[in-house]
């Protein structure tokens, strides 16, 4: 379980997050919604270690992880993806996945001498990477440079990188943005399977209510930097305060 307690974060005079507290249950898929500027991405950045909060705490299973740098959080099983997919553009797709797991071949002597133990681990990681590519149905681009992929494929690759890390909890920042319907379905399927088969916890920022209703048991709504409401997708869509601040009348997604 991740618990966020009384987080404040401001940039200059702007309160991006104002006394927000919330909980994400282990094994759940939680949606985080809210109008643009509601502080969703800032909250992600605070949890994932990009910014230290001005005040407040982030707890992972009761352990205080506030302000730890991203690579330390990585080793605790916390990963995030970005609204605009990030990739190692000059590495192949397969290498993009293979750099993620911890590997004894990183020592200089192991790298030069390549003892059998290291080579066995290398093979094992390669097999896992190939499994991940199969799972995401992008095996055909394994040897392509990641920079040459389409936007949607980059999103899948990003999901693949989180799979290689075998995380506890993954923060997805608008995984569906700029992705066509078919691909969105593939991504949604992958998230559901990862949640059910491997027990990953997901927390996702999304605007597409249909996508959220399909995946998320719990939806948290933020408005103007603080927590507004929490419930199932249905409850949220009926909530007066949420309709007022975010969804608009008729329960349809508000156009920005």
């Amino acid at each position, binding site marked *: 379980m991740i618990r966020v307690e009384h987080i404040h974060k401001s940039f200059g005079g702007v309160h991006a997050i104002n006394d927000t507290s919330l909980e994400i249950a282990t094994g759940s898929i939680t949606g985080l919604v809210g109008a643009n500027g509601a502080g969703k991405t800032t909250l992600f950045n605070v949890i994932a270690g990009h910014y230290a909060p001005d005040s407040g705490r982030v707890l992972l299973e009761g352990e205080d992880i506030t302000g730890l740098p991203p690579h330390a959080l*990585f080793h605790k099983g916390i990963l995030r993806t970005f609204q605009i997919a*990030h990739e190692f553009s000059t590495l192949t797709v397969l290498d993009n996945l293979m*750099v993620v797991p911890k590997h004894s071949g990183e020592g200089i002597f192991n790298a030069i001498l390549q003892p059998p133990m290291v080579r066995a681990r290398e093979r094992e990681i390669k097999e896992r990477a190939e499994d991940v590519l199969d799972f995401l149905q992008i095996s055909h681009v394994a040897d392509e440079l990641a920079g040459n992929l389409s936007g949607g494929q980059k999103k899948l690759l990003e999901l693949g990188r989180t799979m290689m890390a075998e995380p506890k909890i993954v923060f997805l920042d608008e995984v569906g943005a700029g992705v066509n319907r078919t691909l969105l379905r593939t991504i949604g399927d992958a998230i559901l399977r990862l949640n059910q088969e491997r027990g990953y916890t997901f927390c996702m920022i999304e605007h597409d209510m249909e996508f959220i209703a399909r995946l998320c048991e719990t939806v948290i709504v933020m408005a103007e930097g603080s927590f507004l409401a929490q419930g199932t997708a249905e409850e949220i869509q009926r909530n007066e305060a949420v309709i007022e601040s975010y969804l608009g009348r008729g329960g349809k997604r508000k156009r920005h």
Partner: protein
Amino acid sequence: MMDILNALIILGNYIIIPALTYGSQLALGALGVTLIYGILRFSNFAHTELMAFGTTITIFLTWALQNAGVSIAPLPTALIALPFGILATVTLVLATDHLTFRHYRKVKAKPLTFMIVSIGLMFFIGGLVRLIIGSKDQIFSDGARFIFSARAFKKFTGFDEGLALKTSQGITIIITIIAVTALFAFLNRTRIGTAMRAYSDNENLALLSGINPERVVMITWMLTAVLATLAGVLYGLDKSFKPFIYMQLLLPIFASAIVGGLGSPLGAIAGGYLIAFSEVAITFAYKKFFGYLLPDALAPESLWQILNTEYKFAVSFVILVIVLLIRPQGIFKGKSI
């Protein structure tokens, strides 16, 4: 026909072989600069002083070995001392990184700060080198001077012109081929090499993917120290060792790295040879060459030299300016390895 071949032999002897040698030395130097730029993201002005330091240690060990009567003639004794020179340089860079750059990484200083720190280190290591070995010219090559000499070539082939290959030139080219192959195998085939490329490509994402930045930095420094020592010792064997000359090498080495595209190892190699060939070809006197090619009536009377050898460093500078104006990212697109 004979005349054309003689003209080509002149080109080979005075341009191609010397430029290949000098280009290899520049390429090894530029590779170190480009690795540091690609991974640590700053221009390391102390690089040629690292070359001088590695060479200094190697020279002392060579002298000690020569006094002890150790020899691997016809190869130069310095080749035995070389690994220890490398070891000393690796120790030096890891120590200086620990004492200086590490602090600035911690406080996330700007690249400019790192560059200024490297200038400080340049003066420090330069001073250290002069303190140890002095500022005078040192010759430390021994063993056979030629693999084949101009006279032997003439006698063997019957041409009027001779083609010579010095031992130091042969060694430079062979060691460069081995070092570059090994470097590319390391970067492309090992896990840590892939991690280095990933770190260079996208630092933030590398951190998010759990790559340990300190380890990547440490290994980059070690590779740089190896390359710098190789470049320095090979240059010293081929010409001679003089601290001031090594300091001056900073310009052609930076020019090579920038022309090729800072951060691109392939670019550093291409840049090294491009700069070397331009320097040698532009400062060469073509009188004899055209004497063979042109009919006697047109035979040149002047030297036909585009630029006096004194100005050879200007060549790298001019190429640098031209490249920065036309294609600022370099021949190969730079910025990441």
